[in-house]
């Protein structure tokens, strides 16, 4: 059969008209297949710049080998010298004295700048998600202000330690630092998500323990974040955030439960401090509330992803009697989850979550070792306080 014959048998006047129709159908079908692919490609292209930049920023995080060297330092001057080769260098040059507080301020200033940069560079749709993560720094600032006001530090002293990268306006943070009483700080929080703190003031008046206000702040932070992350239709980015937040809430709750069980607190006094939400089932949390010892809490976790990381820290807990190794293991596991998200979701919120969690670990470790060296702790003692990425 000739091509003209084929065209005629299909009802076309000539082969070119058959070819034109076939080409048009192929083009339409091609477009139907290609358009969704191209939309996804455009979405990926949006993240290419940001995520590559964040990867470079991540490469500057102090490596474990350098941290090990810093732990061996015999003075804060040596720590500062070691930090001179890191990205903290410009901030350290402004240090007037070699004290751990001055190093912490340099760390905080660098952190504020780095986080602000990440928040500025991410695509518009990620900004809202990132803000949920950066709220942690609002709570960090409010806690610093509460402690500062309680210890009657001057507003300038308090301001020097603040990291203004959260959701609250910097002018609001400054206003809070000006307050001269806890009541004033809390009343100035009116109109912010933290206005509910006023409910904890009464409890504080009875106990004179700031922990009750700080615990309430954590509850507000995580419960609001959980609500925000779960109340919207879940796309890939929100799903990754939800996964990270769930682990974060679980870690906060488990750390609290371990400590409470170690101190022998009754279930009734613990429950109100636990954050609602997260990945652990309510029945499991209730079961843990009823057990008496740390070992029983570990056993109750057997069915969860937290069992292995906690189990690794149990021998150290048993030999030292301190709950810290378990807390460090849980914090390390959270960093691992953040790191895993950055690997599994390279085009999206992943690298930002990975960077923020690694950076938090770095700041915490440098702060710990600076304080440890200033307090005259031995390298072995400091090593036991250092946080590592979990397994």
């Amino acid at each position, binding site marked *: 059969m000739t091509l003209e014959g084929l065209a005629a048998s299909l009802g076309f006047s000539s082969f070119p008209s058959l070819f034109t129709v076939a080409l048009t159908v192929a083009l339409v079908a091609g477009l139907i297949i290609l358009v969704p692919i191209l939309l996804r490609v455009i979405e990926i*292209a949006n993240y*290419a710049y940001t995520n*590559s930049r964040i990867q*470079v920023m991540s490469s500057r995080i102090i490596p474990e080998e350098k941290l090990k060297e810093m732990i061996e330092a015999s003075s804060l001057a040596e720590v500062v010298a070691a930090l001179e080769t890191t990205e903290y260098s410009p901030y350290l040059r402004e240090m007037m004295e070699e004290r751990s507080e001055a190093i912490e301020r340099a760390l905080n200033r660098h952190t504020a700048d780095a986080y602000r940069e990440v928040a500025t560079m991410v695509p518009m749709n990620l900004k809202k998600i990132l803000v949920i993560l950066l709220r942690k720094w609002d709570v960090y600032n409010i806690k610093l202000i509460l402690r500062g006001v309680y210890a009657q530090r001057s507003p300038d002293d308090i301001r020097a330690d603040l990291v203004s990268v959260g959701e609250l306006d910097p002018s609001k943070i400054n206003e809070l630092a000006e307050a001269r009483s806890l009541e004033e700080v809390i009343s100035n929080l009116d109109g912010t998500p933290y206005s509910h703190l006023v409910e904890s003031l009464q409890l504080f008046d009875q106990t004179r323990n700031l922990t009750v206000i700080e615990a309430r702040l954590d509850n507000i932070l995580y419960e609001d974040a959980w609500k925000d992350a779960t109340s919207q239709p879940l796309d890939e980015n929100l799903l990754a955030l939800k996964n990270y937040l769930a682990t974060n809430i679980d870690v906060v709750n488990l750390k609290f439960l371990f400590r409470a069980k170690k101190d022998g607190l009754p279930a009734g006094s613990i429950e109100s401090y636990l954050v609602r939400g997260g990945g652990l089932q309510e029945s499991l949390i209730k079961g843990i509330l009823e057990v008496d010892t740390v070992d029983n809490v570990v056993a109750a976790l057997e069915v969860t992803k937290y069992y292995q990381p906690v189990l690794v820290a149990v021998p150290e807990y048993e030999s030292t009697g301190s709950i810290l190794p378990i807390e460090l293991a849980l914090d390390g596991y959270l960093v691992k989850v953040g790191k895993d998200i950055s690997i599994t979701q390279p085009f999206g919120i992943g690298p930002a979550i990975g960077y923020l969690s690694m950076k938090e670990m770095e700041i915490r470790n440098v702060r710990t070792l600076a304080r440890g060296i200033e307090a005259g702790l031995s390298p072995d003692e400091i090593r036991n306080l250092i946080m590592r990425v979990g397994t």
Partner: protein
Amino acid sequence: MLDVSTGVALAAVGAGISMGASAIGSGIGVGIAGAAGAGAIAEDPSKFGTALVFQALPQTQGIYGFLGAVLIMIGTGILGGFTGFEAAANTMAGLVGTTPENAALVMGLAAVGGGLSVGLAGLSAIGQGITAAGSIGAVSKEPGAFGKCMVLTVMSETFAVFGLLITILILVGLKLLGA
């Protein structure tokens, strides 16, 4: 004069698809890799070399598309206009024992087939660009991963090479090239 206009038109469409589709693929791929490269350079200008190497990889599909289009134009003789195509159609008709009109149509369709092969295979540059973008980030963070990332990025190239190979085989098989 033979009625070879349909064949000429199809040959031109084939050459156009070869270059156009692969240029879309390369353009998008290079764009994505370039954005990642710009991000890395913004933080660390010394990453320019790494970024350039990975950004260059999705460009090859565009080169294959260009090569495919040139081969189609040479094989069908349309570089010489109607006369060139007519001469090629006559030669082919003699070789396969058909009418020059049929030979012209077959040549045109062969050109479209060859163009589609290398052109659509050129869209693999989009995937390569995405891998290259990820690799720029990975190598910026861990320079030791350069070799491994390069292997991963080059993988997409295989399909572009297959596409070009099929185009050449169509042209050679139908004696449009090398006859």
